[in-house]
């Protein structure tokens, strides 16, 4: 038998088939990666069973109130959202009892937090506060912590926080522990 060349399969329509599939996936795809601000809620305790907690010195608490018209009251003063980040950083980085060896450029004000380990941010909002404002405030508070951690990471390791190993990241996190306390809901008017 004479050798016959195999007839070539016509691949011209392959592109059409691929296009069809491509268009299907293009239409059904949603590109949004789910991202957001992670928070941990405190466990539920009925109001009459709230355990006695050791008192915290008032100067170690940074109170942030948001009322129903989305206005900020920080440490008994009106504040613009834009100033919240720097004010929080100033408070967290304050070195009142001079025990913080890694705080740089801190105020050492005796009227503010003793050291970053003791500093607590207390956030309270009204039922009428808009979710947008609440997220903005949460974001600014988180940003204050993140910026302080970033600065410390740069000073100590000369690298951005994200590029550090797990152990180093934990060490930096423990140097500026994120303590954001949210009060039980009340009406602030």
């Amino acid at each position, binding site marked *: 038998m004479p050798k016959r060349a195999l007839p070539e399969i016509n691949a011209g329509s392959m592109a059409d088939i691929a*296009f069809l599939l491509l268009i299907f996936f*293009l239409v*059904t*795809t949603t590109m949004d990666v789910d*991202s*957001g601000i992670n928070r941990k*809620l405190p466990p539920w305790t009925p109001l009459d069973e709230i355990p006695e907690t050791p008192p915290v010195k008032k100067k170690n608490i940074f109170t942030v109130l948001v009322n129903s018209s989305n206005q900020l009251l920080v440490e008994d003063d009106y504040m613009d959202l834009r100033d919240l980040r720097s004010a929080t950083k100033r408070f967290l980085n304050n070195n009142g009892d001079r025990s913080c060896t890694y705080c740089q450029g801190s105020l050492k004000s005796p009227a503010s937090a003793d050291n970053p380990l003791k500093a607590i941010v207390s956030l309270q909002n009204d039922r009428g506060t*808009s*979710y947008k404002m609440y997220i*903005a405030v949460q974001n600014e508070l988180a940003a204050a912590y993140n910026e302080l951690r970033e600065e410390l990471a740069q000073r100590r390791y000369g690298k951005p926080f994200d590029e550090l190993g797990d152990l180093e990241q934990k060490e930096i996190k423990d140097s500026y522990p994120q303590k954001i306390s949210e009060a039980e809901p009340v009406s602030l008017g």
Partner: protein
Amino acid sequence: MSKFKKNKGGGTPAISTASLPDIVFMLLFFFMVTTVMREITLKVENSKPFATEIKKLERKSLVTYIYVGKPKAAYLSQVGGEPRIQLNDAFARIKELQPFVITEREAINEAERPLMTVSIKADEQVKMGLVTDIKQELRKANSLKINYSTRKGDVYED
């Protein structure tokens, strides 16, 4: 007898389309890998607020979603214009939240239950009262890891 013959009157040669399927397949695979099928139909308005300090949600199978917002125009006559909660495909009352979260948790493999995250996808127009109620219900259901779903962007702009 020149070696360099001029291509006279040849017109433009046809461009080879042989590599077109390859290119299309490349795109196809990209979209196949990145695609996430939308599992539910949104019945509420959902324009999420902006934030910058955001973290990605890993492990989609461990995430439960709660949608909050004003009902879309098509449902206004049924449920009214007040912000509502949507669980899976239906509107829900605040009381239904606790059993919902508990059933979702039961569905997860026991070893991974503590890692379950509840993602609150609330519209930026929603008032905190509703969100606080949801948070209280989540605390009662002992589902404490939450994530406020946001978009990446500047928080100051109105």
